């Protein structure tokens, strides 16, 4: 692609005089890939940059001020880490951080394993494949507002479906929502139900891009089905798992929507209170804007801390 450009630019340089050197360079620059592609990447880049990185930057800046209430705007002259010190000393931040961490890890891990399992099952060419695929993907299409409400009904201790089912095995009834020990697990389970179909589709796409030869070659070499997947196929799904993991983590952070729909308020039971709900409470109920911004930054760092080792590993492996 760049070859014809170089040729054109070069020929013009030869034709021009020595004093026009800067002009030549400018013309050359204006014809470079950078400038030519500019209109195509700059618009999305600037919108995204402003929205995402601008937002992160502004949020971080606010978190260093003492901004609160309605009457005065943030004062940028006196920046310090006071809000972070306050956050570290706030027991609610610790409780919600712990819950957020558990939610991130457990939800993402189980959803990916389940998605991988389902994808492999489907890829084996089982019967009614398309129908099963649709059934598993369908929950993903539903809004959190809907799924939160019907999981709330299903978790009802008296007439909920979940207790009816575990009752068949002589267990329960459990107070899924009321028991602080169980409520986080209940929420995670509902989220897994909703998103395992998504992980399945991502892995399925990855699996289907792997040529059949490799299965045949493994078979010829005498590898068992399990070994074929473990040694040959799954290692090739790294890029699928990176994208699945990133998206699932984002969904885990978005569990706010699910919790808000389930409990109808920003204040959710302590057992399932996460940093996102705490942040919204501090900001929009109490107008502690700077403190809420500090919590947001902690949430961001936590997400990065969880995903960074994984991304680093994938990068070293060359799949990123």
């Amino acid at each position, binding site marked *: *692609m760049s070859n*014809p*450009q170089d040729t*054109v630019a070069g020929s013009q340089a030869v034709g021009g005089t020595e004093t026009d050197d800067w002009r030549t360079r400018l013309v050359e620059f204006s*014809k470079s890939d950078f*400038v*030519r592609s*500019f*209109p195509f990447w*700059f*618009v999305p880049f*600037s*919108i995204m940059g*402003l929205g995402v990185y*601008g937002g992160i930057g502004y949020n971080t800046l606010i978190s260093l001020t003492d901004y609160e*209430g*309605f*009457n005065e*705007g943030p004062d940028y002259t006196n920046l310090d880490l006071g809000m972070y010190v306050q956050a570290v000393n706030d027991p*609610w931040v610790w409780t919600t951080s712990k819950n957020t961490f558990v939610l991130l890890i457990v939800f993402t891990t189980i959803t990916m394993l389940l998605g991988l399992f389902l994808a492999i099952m489907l890829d084996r060419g089982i019967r009614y494949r398309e129908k099963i695929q649709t059934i598993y993907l369908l929950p993903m299409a539903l809004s959190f507002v809907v799924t939160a409400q019907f999981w*709330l*009904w299903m*978790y*009802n*201790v*008296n*007439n*909920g479906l979940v207790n009816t089912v575990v009752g068949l095995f002589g267990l329960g*009834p459990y*107070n*899924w*929502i*009321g*028991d*602080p020990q169980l409520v986080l697990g209940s929420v995670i389970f509902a989220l897994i139900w909703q998103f395992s179909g998504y992980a399945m589709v991502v892995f399925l796409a990855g699996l289907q891009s792997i040529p059949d030869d490799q299965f045949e070659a493994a078979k010829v070499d005498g590898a068992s089905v399990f070994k074929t997947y473990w040694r040959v196929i799954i290692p090739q799904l790294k890029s699928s798992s990176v994208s699945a993991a990133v998206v699932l983590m984002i969904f885990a952070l978005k569990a706010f929507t699910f919790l808000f729909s389930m*409990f*109808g*308020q*920003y*204040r959710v*039971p*302590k057992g399932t*209170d996460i940093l996102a709900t705490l942040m*919204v*409470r501090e*900001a*929009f*109920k*109490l*107008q502690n*804007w700077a403190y809420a911004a500090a919590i947001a930054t902690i949430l961001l760092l936590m997400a990065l801390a969880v995903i960074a080792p994984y991304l680093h590993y994938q990068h070293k492996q060359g799949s990123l």
Partner: protein
Amino acid sequence: MVMYVGPIMVPMPRKGNSGGDEGSLTRRRLIQVGSLGVGMMVAGCSEGDGGSDGGSDGDGGGDGDGGGTATMTDNPMEALHGWTGGDGAAAIGKLVDMWEEQYPDTAHDIKPIGGDANENLNSTVARRLANRNPPDAFASWPGKTMEQYGGRLMSITDVWEANNYTETMHPKSLGENKLNGEFRAIPLGSHRLNNLFYNVSILEEAGVDPESLTSYDNFIDALDAVDQNTDAIPMTITTRGSWANLQYFVEFMLGTEGQEPYEAFLDGDGDKQALVRALEKTQNVIENYTNDDKSSISFPEANDKLINGNAAFFTMGNWAYGMYRNTDNFEYEEDWGWVAFPGTADMYVWHLDSFLFPRDGNAPQKARTFAKFLGTKDVQVEFNNLKGSIPLRTDVDGSRLTDFLNLNVEDLNSLEKFPPTLAHGLAATAEDLSACKDAIASNFMGPYDPEATAEELMSVF
């Protein structure tokens, strides 16, 4: 298709790349100019963002000044409220109709912000006040809750005085609608909090005389009687949100310890043992006499159990009454009845719904007209009849109200004890209320720990 697309698609990029001929030069220039324009737009936006604090301040000030000289702007009067469904929606719908009838030429934008318990309304208001883009009026709780908006509200004392509302509104409501010595809100209705609703037929079956429900001990006897003599749940409750548990505690506190220890607690001068005793009684009822699914149902779902004949008692602000009225063949004193929460017969636990008026709105004169309108007798009667709350005008003809509301009006005008509600913002600032809910959420939503709850509640005030 493939044959046709192929030859055209492939040369196109090459032509663009060659860059020599004039045709593609103009096209490229066009794109360059266009992208420059977009770039400038983006830059412009970001500058606008950066300068928003200063810029919009100026805007708001300008409009506000315009209003100050008593000239009407062309802007519609924007009022936000949270009544999106049921009685609230019907009541505000009626209010809008009345406004359009009385002020046909005054443009308005009275709109609901949905969500349970005004959650979205409050956050929308907070966002808009912080961004210096306030609505002209919004529904909220006055009293201590209003303090968080201090500095952002305008005085409507002139409206109160010009319309004699200072004389005709309930005297207890005056102070609650003032902030820093000026009226900044106007009350629309009051809900009573200390209610015990009951299902008449279940109480008959259990052999309980509702007149006997005058103390905690009598109440426990009644709950036991329902438990032993009927299949019904003695008391249906919701514990989905910590506000509900906080409210139950306050009811038991007022019913067993009385108004003075409660208000001493709010003043930061409370007796911890009084709180512990009240919390233990609350715990006793919640753990032993209520529905199992309390933590996953909302208050309307809890109230449904009473309506369906599955539960005997229900306590809630009297907004619950709207559900009875909207149920066919479910009549006051035939199917459901009311007594004051045991031990609080001489009290009216006090709650107010008001409209608050921000300064620097877009239509301050229209907002004043709206404030005047909200205080009129007709609006107070019509709105509250549908909403199931009680008008604050003391000069309303009681026959215009439903029987149940009229009974409460009589109490409102004759009782002397008005302990303010804690869970509904009259008695505590937003910050303190949040801390109280934290205390409940940590220690009193199962497992129940009265000692630790009392400790933490005491530290709030």
